[in-house]
């Protein structure tokens, strides 16, 4: 195979004050390939892509970018887009209250003399939406479509810019299994049309499915680039973490006691459309020392269920009872839920979990300030001791507890969120997507923490979209679909097929009921 490189990055070194984020990184991308970049969080993948796209302009890094055979010196993101390099960030950059069409041509408006030609916007956006397989009216507001579709809008937006090299930063991180598959199929289709893509991903099965070549980055350095044929999951994992992970899930001998957490007849309606029932009469329980999973597709109502239980943080017309240690508990506000012994670590740590502009110490103690204070006055040294203790316990990697949480990697941020809830000393922890967007090594650490908590006799409820994860760590798994529990599986007997079957069967039986009713 002739090596026709569309892009070569040579000897890229990027330093931030005090940290070498990238050190002599080399990347060669062949024309027409899907090139995957793997690495732990904080390894430098996103930094590398920011160098490539001109977010970090020429002169702020060392090394050379050769694109289409010419050396490039991008002063900003406009320069790289002009050359056909388009990056789609992990956090989508769409304006929710603008329409799909308006978003697609944002900064690239179909206008002459400053006056927008709306007919052209509609025509071109419909055309591009068809290309990405999205059937939506270009006038629909972005806020009214799901995350999966928003991702497609982002891609359509990239196509509108005449893209030659498409960079996707963890494109499937917040997508359901089905949407992820559709997205990957789309990438393969683009590849067939000759488009080159770079995909940053944590998900090994996706990489194996679509990537032609894989470059591993670790600690700011390129470790190796391998061809598809040479790839095994073990080899990727080994390169990424610098060690072989024998088992991705730490083992545990469960020691399960009596039920400590029970939810009975729980129903919740949508906060904006109160006629829509989101949670339909859920009954579940967690026993002492047990790790219980909630499986389900995106939109099944898992987060909505957890948040409605935790201080009615979601929904209206909530009915049902919560029992802790066999006694009915008041969880009607977050404060009361915490006092009752409940904790909920959110799926979205940046929006709901952390004060990103404050340091670790203040974030760890915020849910239990009375624990470090006497009659409203904080014991400074006591607080420091607590923060240090949890930093050590959860192995948060930082220079000190005075590091700002916004500067931590995803895995370490997640550990701060966990620390916060551990310090509130709950009996039952609800962990919503505890390992989303964090790397293999940190995942293992989180699982270890979960196991330790279970061994201490706490009840753990884990919500996850990654079925292997649930199968790996749970003693029991509930399957949730469209707001109701459609299955309960023993952890040892559960399998991905059984979960999926429960979901599918749940759907059909529901359809039958509805058909009968109408």
């Amino acid at each position, binding site marked *: 195979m002739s090596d026709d490189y569309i892009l070569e990055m040579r000897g890229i070194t990027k330093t931030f*004050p005090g940290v070498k984020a990238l050190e002599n990184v080399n990347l060669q991308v062949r024309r027409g390939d899907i090139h995957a970049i793997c690495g*732990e969080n904080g390894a430098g993948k996103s930094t590398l892509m920011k160098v490539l796209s001109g977010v970090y302009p020429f002169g702020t890094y060392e090394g050379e970018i050769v694109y289409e055979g010419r050396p490039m010196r991008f002063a900003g993101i406009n320069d790289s887009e002009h050359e056909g390099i388009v990056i789609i960030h992990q956090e989508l950059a769409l304006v929710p209250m603008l329409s799909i069409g308006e978003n697609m041509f944002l900064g690239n408006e179909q206008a002459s003399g400053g006056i927008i030609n709306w007919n052209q916007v509609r025509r071109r956006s419909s055309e591009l939406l068809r290309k990405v397989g999205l059937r939506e009216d270009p006038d629909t507001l972005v806020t009214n479509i799901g995350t999966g579709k928003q991702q497609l809008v982002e891609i359509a937006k990239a196509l509108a810019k005449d893209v030659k090299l498409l960079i996707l930063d963890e494109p499937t991180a917040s997508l359901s299994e089905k949407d992820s598959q559709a997205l990957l199929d789309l990438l393969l289709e683009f590849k067939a049309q000759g488009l080159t893509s770079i995909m940053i991903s944590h998900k090994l099965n996706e990489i194996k499915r679509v990537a032609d070549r894989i470059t591993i980055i670790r600690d700011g350095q390129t470790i190796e680039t391998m061809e598809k044929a040479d790839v095994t999951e073990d080899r990727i994992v*080994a*390169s990424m*973490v*610098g*060690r*072989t992970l024998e088992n991705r899930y730490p083992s545990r001998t469960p020691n399960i006691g009596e039920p400590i957490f029970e939810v009975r007849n729980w129903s919740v309606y949508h906060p904006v459309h109160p006629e829509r029932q989101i949670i339909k009469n859920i009954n579940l329980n967690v026993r002492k020392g047990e790790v219980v999973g909630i499986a389900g597709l995106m939109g099944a109502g898992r987060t909505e269920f957890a948040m409605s239980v*935790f*201080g009615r*943080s979601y929904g209206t017309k909530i009915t049902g009872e919560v029992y802790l240690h066999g006694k009915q508990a008041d969880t009607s*506000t*977050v*404060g009361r*839920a*915490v006092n009752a012994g409940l904790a*909920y670590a*959110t799926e979205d740590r940046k*929006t*709901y*979990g*952390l*004060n*990103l*502009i*404050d*340091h670790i110490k*203040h974030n760890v103690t*915020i*849910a239990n*300030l*009375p624990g470090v*204070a006497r009659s*409203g*006055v*904080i014991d*400074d*040294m006591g607080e*420091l*001791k607590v923060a240090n203790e949890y930093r050590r316990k959860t*192995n948060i*990697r930082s*220079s*000190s507890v*005075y*590091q700002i949480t916004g500067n931590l990697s995803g895995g370490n941020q997640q550990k701060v969120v966990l620390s*916060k809830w551990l310090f*509130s000393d709950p009996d039952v922890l609800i962990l919503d997507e505890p390992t989303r967007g964090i790397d293999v*090594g940190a995942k293992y650490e989180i699982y270890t923490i979960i196991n330790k908590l279970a061994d201490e006799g706490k009840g753990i409820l884990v919500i996850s979209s990654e079925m292997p994860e649930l199968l790996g760590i749970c003693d029991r798994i509930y399957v949730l679909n469209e707001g109701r529990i459609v299955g309960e599986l023993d952890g040892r007997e559960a399998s991905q097929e059984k979960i999926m079957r429960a979901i599918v069967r749940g759907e059909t039986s529901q359809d039958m009921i509805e058909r009968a009713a109408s």
Partner: protein
Amino acid sequence: MSTEVAAPTTNAGRASARDALKENLREYGLVIALIAIMGFFWFTTNGVLFYSVNLTNIVLQNSYIIVMALGMLLVIVAGHIDLSVGSVSGFIGAVGAVLMVDYGMNPLLAAAISIAIGAVIGGAQGYFIAYMKIPSFIVTLAGLLVFKGLVLFMLGGRSVGPFPTEFQLLSSGFIPDLIGPITLMAPSLNAAGAPIPNSGIILHSTTLLVGLLLVGLMLFLEIRSRRERESHGYEGEPFVFFVLKNLVISAILLFLIYKFASYRGLPNVLMVMAVLIAAFMFMTKRMTFGRRIYAMGGNEKAAKLSGINTERLTFFVFTIMGMLAALAGLIYAARLNMATPKAGQGLELDVIAAVFVGGASALGGVGQVTGAVIGAFIMGVMNNGMGIMGINIDWQQMIKGIVLLGAVAFDLYNKKKA
């Protein structure tokens, strides 16, 4: 390929020293800016700025701004804004005047009622902001108009005054000299044998004593907290910095105390301010209430999901702001010795400017009490200095506007670089 990924074991002590330094750099910068500005005006006013009587004036002129800046700091850290404080202070000044002058009420009782009304006003605005979820900008803009109108309605265009003497003392009185004056240099006598004013040096000894005690207390607390930190393995800023910082601050304080002592002593209103500043510093740094305000301003959703009752917290923040606006209104009225329909107008802008010059973030979650106080003094010294220099009000306004913009721009530039 079997190297363990170990946690970066940086020297925890040194790293935290660097963090502490970074955290304090802003405050040092503010102090240095204030000193530089004072030096500049000392030069351009031929030293008039530092006359004892003028320093006392600076305190009196800015007392009500600083009192309100304390509340505004909480409001801005909480992620809100309060545009109504000027009008509210004017309204409360008028209420106090009507109670004391028209109805002859006891000044202490009248002041207590006035501050209670301030609390109700602040609480009412806080209710709309916290529980009805109306943006604070809109609620307090409405408050600005309502209370501006109410003053006019209540006073009907007249000015009410003068106040009872006891009440005037709030703004024009000085602490009594319990020990008696110390004469360092006897004043020279004129031909008639009477002492010439402003000659000789007679010191207000109680002021000296209170001042020395305060400086001593400050040093004691600083050293104790540093010791405590060190005993837990965390040094604060580097030792040289620590010594230098405390030396400079002590020297400034002692200088100011000497100046006050050589005039008429410490103004009463300065004592009120000092107590409030100390209370607000303690509240923001050491109390759970203060910590929760920062958490809410930094990320309201996360604070809510951490069990913080953000609605109640917002309500209290605005209630406190209302009380402080009321107190400031009384101070202002006592200083003028009457309540006028125009009192307090536009003060909200000075207060907000002081807080932002002092390093608070308009996005919430960031800001310090010391910063707001120093910010208020920076603006106050500029007012005073430019006034002495005889710069016209038009130029003064423009210069102050540019300083506000410059201070915030400089701050953001520094943050980006860091």
